[in-house]
């Protein structure tokens, strides 16, 4: 793996290049979320229709395989790439998947973290975890973390930092030279603990950092401070990955603090909700200059394909979009598929939403390269607020405020 920072904007936001196995991508970039290594509804032959190379970095949770298939069998198959027939994709192993495998802080103890998984609550010790990692041979793997929600006591939070650092050492000691190690950084909503943890992890021999403990009930307002504390204490030349920053606004917060890689479930959530992303992806200049508040029809962030207005709408999800779905299908067809609960609806929406969100990341990178990241952020967030205001005036409530949307997402 090779990582180099190429451009900065606004002090912290940065564009880098990440060379990993067969791919070379620009960061900030999105990790495609998967279920057992495959995007939730996109079969491997359809993956190639997504824009390369940025669609070729996939997240997976080793915990998805706890009961189905043994490490011995995975070893025999030859690892995760071989098992999924995806030879030109790179996998990043993160225990928490933010959907089905969630950290359960009250079940964790000094031996290992505990997770709520589809097969019940499971305590994962470093030795077990490393056995799975060794069999799967991911390109990048994240060390085990004791993630705690924002509301725990400082004492519990402090012990989570101690355990996370201890498990980092144990995982590294147990590793059989597979993949690049990303050290987990935790510390909840406590700045001192965040700083302490970042410093401890920074002095260890890891290839990059995974910043955990987000998306677990902390306030969105406090996040920039926490992210900044962590990033300030990490070496600038190594990549930083985070989980739990899902929404576009949250991603922008992460980028602003200097995060390079995002494990986001946003696409999954809006796809299963029957939504398609539609916010404009034309260049940053037009993004900054041409927006007309009140122009809801064409400037919505996302549309609900279940809405009856799309029953006879024979236009694509987004005019001019080059994704498989937009090139081939209409809103009316997807509306029908959702009505009759046909799985193809999710397949088509996930294809579009993935391509669209990758486009959003592209826009972020362009704005950083142009030194206009801050303006881009302000404009993007303002657009969404304006939309909400004009939508509320029009009596339509399809674009809730980011905060409300965040609440809504956690309800899903």
């Amino acid at each position, binding site marked *: 793996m090779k990582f180099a920072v190429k451009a900065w904007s606004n002090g912290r936001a940065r564009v880098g290049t990440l060379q990993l196995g067969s791919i070379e991508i620009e960061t900030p970039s999105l990790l495609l979320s998967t*279920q*057992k290594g*495959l995007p*939730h*509804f996109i*079969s*491997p*032959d*359809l993956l190639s229709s997504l824009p390369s190379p940025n669609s070729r970095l996939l997240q997976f949770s080793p915990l998805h*395989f706890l*009961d*189905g*298939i*043994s490490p*011995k*069998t995975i070893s*025999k*198959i030859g690892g995760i790439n071989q*098992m*999924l*027939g*995806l030879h030109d994709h790179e996998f990043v192993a993160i225990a928490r998947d933010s959907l089905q495998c969630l950290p359960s802080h009250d079940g964790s103890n000094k031996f290992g973290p505990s997770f709520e998984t*589809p097969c019940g609550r499971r305590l994962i010790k470093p030795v077990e975890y490393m056995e799975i990692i060794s069999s799967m041979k991911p390109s990048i793997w994240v060390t085990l973390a004791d993630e705690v929600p924002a509301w725990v006591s400082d004492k519990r939070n402090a012990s989570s930092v101690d355990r996370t650092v201890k498990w980092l050492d144990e995982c590294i000691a147990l590793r059989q030279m597979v993949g690049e190690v990303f050290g987990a950084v935790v510390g909840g909503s406590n700045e001192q603990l965040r700083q302490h943890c970042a410093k401890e992890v920074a002095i260890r021999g890891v290839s990059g950092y995974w910043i955990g403990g987000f998306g677990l009930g902390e306030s969105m307002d406090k996040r920039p401070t926490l992210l900044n504390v962590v990033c300030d204490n990490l070496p600038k030349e190594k990549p930083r990955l985070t989980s739990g920053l899902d929404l576009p606004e949250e991603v922008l917060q992460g980028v602003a603090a200097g995060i390079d890689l995002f494990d986001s479930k946003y696409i999954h959530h809006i796809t299963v909700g029957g939504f398609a992303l539609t916010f404009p992806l034309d260049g940053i200049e037009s993004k900054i200059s041409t927006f007309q508040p009140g122009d809801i029809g064409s400037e919505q962030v996302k549309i609900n394909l279940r809405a009856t207005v799309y*029953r*006879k709408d*024979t236009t694509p999800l987004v005019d001019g979009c080059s994704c*498989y779905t937009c090139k*081939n*299908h*209409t809103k*009316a*067809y997807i*509306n*029908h*598929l959702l*009505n*009759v609960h*046909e*799985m*193809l609806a*999710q*397949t*088509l929406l996930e294809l579009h939403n993935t391509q669209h969100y990758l486009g959003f990341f592209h826009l972020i990178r362009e704005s950083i390269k142009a030194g206009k990241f801050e303006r881009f952020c302000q404009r993007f967030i303002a657009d969404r607020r304006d939309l909400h205001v004009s939508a509320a005036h029009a009596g339509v409530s399809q674009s809730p405020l980011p905060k409300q949307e965040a609440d809504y997402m956690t309800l899903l």
Partner: protein
Amino acid sequence: MALRFEVLGRFNRARAAQLTLPHFVCQTPLFMPVGTQGTIKGLTNDQLEEIGCQIILGNTYHLALRPTSELIDELGGLHKFMKWPRAMLTDSGGFQMVSLLHLADITEKGVTFQSPVDGKPMLLTPEESIQIQNRIGADIIMALDDVVKTTITGPRIEEAMYRTLRWIDRCISAHKRPNEQNLFGIVQGGLDPVLRDICVRGLVERNLPGYAIGGLAGGEDKDSFWRVVAQCTAALPEDKPRYVMGVGYPLDIVVCSALGADMYDCVYPTRTARFGTALVPEGVLKLKHQVMACDTRPIDPACGCMVCKNFSRAYIHCLVTKDAMGSQLLSYHNLYYMMKLSRDLHSSIVYGKFPEFVCTFLQKMFPEGEVPEWVCNAMEVAGIDISSCCSPVSSSYGLNLDEKAHAV
């Protein structure tokens, strides 16, 4: 008539043909996957084309409810609505009403059923069925028939057969797009050769573009099944396609093709996929089974499909019945298997290798030579010597194994 049917090769009763429909030039024998609501279980159109799917079937009853035939018509027909470039067939809607709904009542006027929307009684007449199918716009549309269970006996069978004959004239006169859509008649008559004969003659007199053999694959014994198929295919015109409705087990398709049938449809390959079962030359493979958890081979090592090229049985095992992707991948494999079977039937007949193909097929499915007696009997009528793959064991043993292979 909006089709051309050219026989390219024969072996005794079996035939391989080119069926030219308004949207696609098809090679028969062929299997038609069922895409009930304008889509086939999670597969994209590109994937369906890639696996060689030529005709897909839409269910009139479901489409008439959602999104409604009026909407499909307004948006330019089902082809355009789902952007399927190849051929399509719609059923009459009668079967679903009888099979899915309680309180369906069939009278001379049509099928009365309880509306699933508001519970009110509704009437589907032959005229209406055709009108709806005209709006949907498939290449092949089916006449409304009076469907009865094959396991029923007595005067009801006779009544249904005569009613089907009376209704075909109403369907023909209601059909508004005969130059774009082909109306197929359906032979009824239960398991009674006399009734089947009357029905076939009656339909052939009407000179329809194609004919279906209906009322089968509903739990009747296999011996009756193939005899009805053999009788109907023998009596139907040589220059028209013959479609056996509801047939989807690979073995049944091979037998029916040997007897001269051309087209088949069934939900079996996709339904069984959702239950975690893969179709393989040896019969079926149950991916849910615990032994699959450490089996690193592909589903079928000889299969060239995307799923078999990429995945092990162990990986599919941990997906099936838990994740949507499991049924998506197994449906893909199973449909690929059915399309490959169709292609193999076609080319073996064209190249004069049909008996060899049948023997190889049977040998794989019945490695001990336990070919069911009904298959042996049917092949004798079809003039195909399968003695090389039959062992002289008792027939009941063979039948049991056959049942096991087909258990869903």
